[in-house]
């Protein structure tokens, strides 16, 4: 049975693997016939900031760049709906112009409704 899968990411990108790993999890939920969404809250809101640069430096030393969460979001947008909690953006001084296009802002009532409407909520 197809399910609404509501994924909430509380952790910021790069400090932990959680934000990056939530995205392929959501994409495969869509491939399996479910309806996934990801909502970034708390420190997780930094995942939706535009212009992420993920290189540590010389590729000869560092082998490859760390995968970009911004690129993963952009790639997954056709199959996964992305949201961000507006109050948590404001708290961290992230302005609308700094956000990746196509990310919808939610307030806490919206997020509560999304949790109530979903059959599954997974929190990273």
């Amino acid at each position, binding site marked *: 049975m197809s399910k609404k899968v509501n994924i909430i990411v509380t952790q910021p990108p790069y400090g932990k693997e959680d934000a990056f*790993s939530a995205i392929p999890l959501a994409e495969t939920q869509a491939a399996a016939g479910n309806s996934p969404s990801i909502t970034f809250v708390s420190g997780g809101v930094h995942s939706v900031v535009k212009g992420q640069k993920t290189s540590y430096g010389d590729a000869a030393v560092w082998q490859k760049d760390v995968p970009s969460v911004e690129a993963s979001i952009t790639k997954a947008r056709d199959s996964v709906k992305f949201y961000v909690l507006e109050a948590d953006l404001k708290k961290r001084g992230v302005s609308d112009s700094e956000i990746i296009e196509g990310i919808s802002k939610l307030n806490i009532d919206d997020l509560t409704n999304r949790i109530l409407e979903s059959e*599954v909520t997974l929190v990273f």
Partner: protein
Amino acid sequence: MKITHEWHGSKVTKMANNGYNKTLTIVSINGPYRDEAAYTLIRLAHAAKEKGINVNFFNYLDGTLIGHRDQAPKEFPVVEQLFGTVLKKGLKNPKVDAIACIKCTDARGVTKQQTEGVVIGGLYDLGEWTAESDKTILLG
């Protein structure tokens, strides 16, 4: 009803309704010992099984270390053995199945070190389990 399919040469038997009414899928992302999450999910699985509930473990990220063989902590219960015991007790109904994410096990070099009963699979298996299960939770 059991549904069996091949994944990277291994047989994966998923638990569609096998006579028991409920199925719980537990996604774990934390490794053993640094925090109590592994003990919590194992206790949860024991309790669910006692209630006649089928359990699916999907081990993701550092959660793939839960089933790593040859753990030998000096001062804590051995997570691998506790986990393996739940899997062995889950050979019959209600069933307990476990899949470890192959990208995560490969990244950590533990694909061939998984304890008996853990099948190497992928995120698509979790998508299917999510669709089939009554409840899916993530313990982080």
